[in-house]
C-alpha cells in the first residue's frame, strides 16, 4: 500500500530532490505516492502548507524560522527534518553595473567586487538614485546572503541601497526595464537574465558562505509528528534522489525532467548548467566551472544542523532590527530536526554526523569530523569575511555586527 503525500514547490532548480524522488521511483520504493503542487509565490506555498493543501513544502529556510516565530502573521511552528540543498544562488547585475564593479566573464573576488560596489552605491546615493537590488523574499537566504555581503563590504543595506522583492521568473524583466540594477536569485533565473543579455553573473552565493543553508523540506510541526513514518520514508527517498542527482551520468536526463512545464518550465540547457556547476556568466560566453555552486548531497548536505537554524535566527534579528530573545532563539533552533533525519536514515549505511550543531564557517580546509560510525569529511565552509558563528554565543555574534 502506498501513502500519498502532497509537496508544494516553487519552480526552481533546487526543488529537484522531491521531483526526482518521484520521477525515478525512489518515493514509490519507500511506499510513498507523491503529488506536487506548483505555485509561483512563497506566500502561496506557505498558505497551502499551513491550511493543509500540502503535507510538506520546498521552502526558503528563513521563512520556516520566521513563520515559527510569528513574523508578519500569527506564529505556527514548522519543522524541517531535511535540508533540500546548500547555496545554488548567484548575484547578477545589469551589464552596465557589472562592467563598473566586476570583471564580466569571471566570478569575482567578493571582497573586491564588494568594495567597488560600495563606491558605486555611494555615488548613486549621492546622485539621489540609489541602487535597487532584488531578492525573492524578505525571509530568504538570498536576502540574508546579499545583506551579509553588502554589510561586510561597507554598504548599509537599509540606507545605501534599496532592497526590493521581485518574483524569480521576473528578475530578467525587472533588470531589462531598469526597475532593479541587480538581484540575488536562484537558478535558472540568473542564467535566464544572462541568456537575454540583460544580466551578468558576478558572484555565486557559495562565494559568500561556502556552505550556506538554502531550502528546507518543511512540515507543520504537528503534521510531522502525525505522519512521522511517511516523513521518514520521504527522507530516505530524497537521499536516494540526491545520489542520483549528483551523478554526472544522470545530469542530462534530470535536466530534461526538471525543465518540464509541470516542474520548473524552463530551458533544459540552463538547468543543466546549474546542476553541473557550469554557468554562463555573460551572454554568448563559454560556461565557467564553479565547483559546488549547488550542493545537494555530499558531506551530509541535507543534515539539518541546528547551528544553521540558529545562524538564520541571528540574521532575522539583525535585519528585522529585533532584540535578541533566548526564547525565540530556542524556538528557531527547534525548527531544524536532526533527530528525525537520523531516525530516518539509521541502518541505511548513510553517513550521519555525530553532533547536531557545529561552529559555522570554522573549517578552512577539509576536516574529518565524528560520525555516528567512524568519521566523515567536511570541506571548507567559510564565510568570505573570515567570521565564524559559534552557536554557543548567539547573542555575542549578533552584537558583533554592531
Amino acid at each position, binding site marked *: 500500500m502506498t501513502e500519498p503525500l502532497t509537496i508544494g514547490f516553487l519552480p526552481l532548480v533546487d526543488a529537484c530532490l522531491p521531483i526526482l524522488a518521484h520521477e525515478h521511483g525512489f518515493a514509490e520504493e519507500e511506499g510513498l505516492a507523491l503529488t506536487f503542487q506548483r505555485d509561483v*509565490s512563497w*506566500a502561496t506555498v506557505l498558505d497551502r502548507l499551513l491550511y493543509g493543501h500540502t503535507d510538506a513544502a520546498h521552502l526558503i529556510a528563513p521563512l520556516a524560522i520566521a513563520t515559527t516565530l510569528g513574523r*508578519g*502573521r500569527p506564529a505556527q511552528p514548522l519543522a524541517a527534518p531535511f535540508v533540500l540543498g546548500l547555496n545554488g544562488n548567484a548575484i547578477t547585475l545589469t551589464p552596465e553595473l557589472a562592467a563598473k564593479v566586476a570583471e564580466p566573464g569571471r566570478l569575482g573576488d567578493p571582497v573586491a567586487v564588494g568594495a567597488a560596489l560600495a563606491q558605486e552605491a555611494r555615488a548613486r546615493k549621492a546622485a539621489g538614485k540609489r541602487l535597487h537590488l532584488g531578492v525573492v523574499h524578505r525571509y530568504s537566504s538570498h536576502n540574508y546572503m546579499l545583506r551579509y555581503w553588502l554589510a561586510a563590504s561597507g554598504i548599509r543595506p537599509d540606507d545605501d541601497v534599496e532592497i526590493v*522583492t521581485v*518574483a524569480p*521568473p521576473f528578475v530578467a524583466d525587472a533588470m531589462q526595464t531598469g526597475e532593479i540594477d541587480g538581484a540575488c536569485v536562484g537558478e535558472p533565473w540568473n542564467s535566464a537574465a544572462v541568456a537575454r543579455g540583460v544580466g551578468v553573473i558576478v558572484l555565486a552565493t557559495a562565494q559568500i558562505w561556502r556552505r550556506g543553508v538554502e531550502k528546507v523540506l518543511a512540515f507543520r510541526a504537528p503534521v510531522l509528528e502525525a505522519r512521522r513514518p511517511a516523513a521518514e520514508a520521504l527522507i530516505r527517498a530524497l537521499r536516494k534522489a540526491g545520489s542520483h542527482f549528483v551523478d554526472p551520468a544522470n545530469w542530462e536526463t534530470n535536466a530534461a525532467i526538471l525543465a518540464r512545464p509541470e516542474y520548473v518550465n524552463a530551458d533544459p540547457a540552463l538547468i543543466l548548467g546549474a546542476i553541473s556547476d557550469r554557468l554562463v556568466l555573460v551572454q554568448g560566453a563559454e560556461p565557467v566551472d564553479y565547483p559546488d555552486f549547488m550542493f545537494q548531497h555530499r558531506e551530509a548536505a541535507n543534515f539539518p544542523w541546528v547551528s544553521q537554524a540558529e545562524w538564520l535566527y541571528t540574521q532575522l534579528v539583525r535585519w528585522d532590527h529585533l532584540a535578541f530573545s533566548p526564547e525565540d532563539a530556542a524556538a528557531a533552533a527547534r525548527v531544524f530536526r536532526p533527530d528525525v533525519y537520523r531516525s530516518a536514515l539509521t541502518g541505511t549505511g548513510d553517513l550521519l554526523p555525530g553532533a547536531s550543531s557545529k561552529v559555522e564557517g570554522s573549517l578552512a580546509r577539509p576536516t574529518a569530523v565524528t560520525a555516528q560510525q567512524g568519521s566523515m569529511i567536511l570541506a571548507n565552509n567559510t564565510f568570505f569575511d573570515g567570521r565564524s558563528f559559534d552557536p554557543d554565543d548567539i547573542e555575542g555574534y549578533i552584537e558583533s555586527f554592531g
Partner: protein
Amino acid sequence: MRIAIVDESATRATIIEEGLAQIPDCEIFVLTERHGLLSRIEEIGPDIVLIDLGNPSRDVLEEYFAVSRVLARPIAMFVDESDDDAIAASIDAGVSAYVVDGLAAHRIRPLLDLAIKRFHAFARLQSDLAEAKGKLAERETIDKAKGKLAERETIDKAKRILMQGKGVSEPEAYAELRRKAMSSNRRIAEIAEAVVTAHELMGGGE
C-alpha cells in the same frame, strides 16, 4: 470601503467585482497589470486587498504591506485568529485577503464570503469550459483524422483513373496531380476530387 482586486485574469476579476458590487458603500478597483502594481495600490489606499493565490505578485505585495506597517496606514494580512475558518475557506477558494488594521471583522466577513463564492463560481465555470473544450478538441481530432482518410481515398481513386485513362504509372499519375495542384495553387486533394467528379460525370465510376 475601498476594495482592490488584484487578479491577472480580467474575467475572474470582473466576476468578483460584480459580486462585491452588491455590498453597499463599496468602491471597487480592479488591478490586472503586474507593472506598477504597488504604485496603483498606493494611489488607491484600499481598506481591503483581495489577490488570487496563483498571482506571482503576492510576495511583492506582502513585502509592501510589511513595509507599510511602519507607515500611517498599516495593512495586515487577514489573520484575526478568531477568523481562521474564514481564512481557510478563502485559501480553499484560491483567494487571499489583506485588510487594513482595525477594520471590524463584521464588515470583512460578508465581503470575504461573497468573494469566496465568486471564486468558486469562476472555478466551476473554468472546469466546465475546460471539459467542453476537451470534448470539442476530441471531436476535431476525429473529424480531422476522418478527413485525412477520405482525402487519401480520393487521391488513390484519382490516381487509378489517370493510370487507366492515360496509361501512366502510379508515380507519374501522382506527379501529374501534384503539378496541376501547384500550377493552380490548390491542394492535391482538391485536384483529385475534381478528377473523380469529372470521371463520374463522364459516366465512369466504380
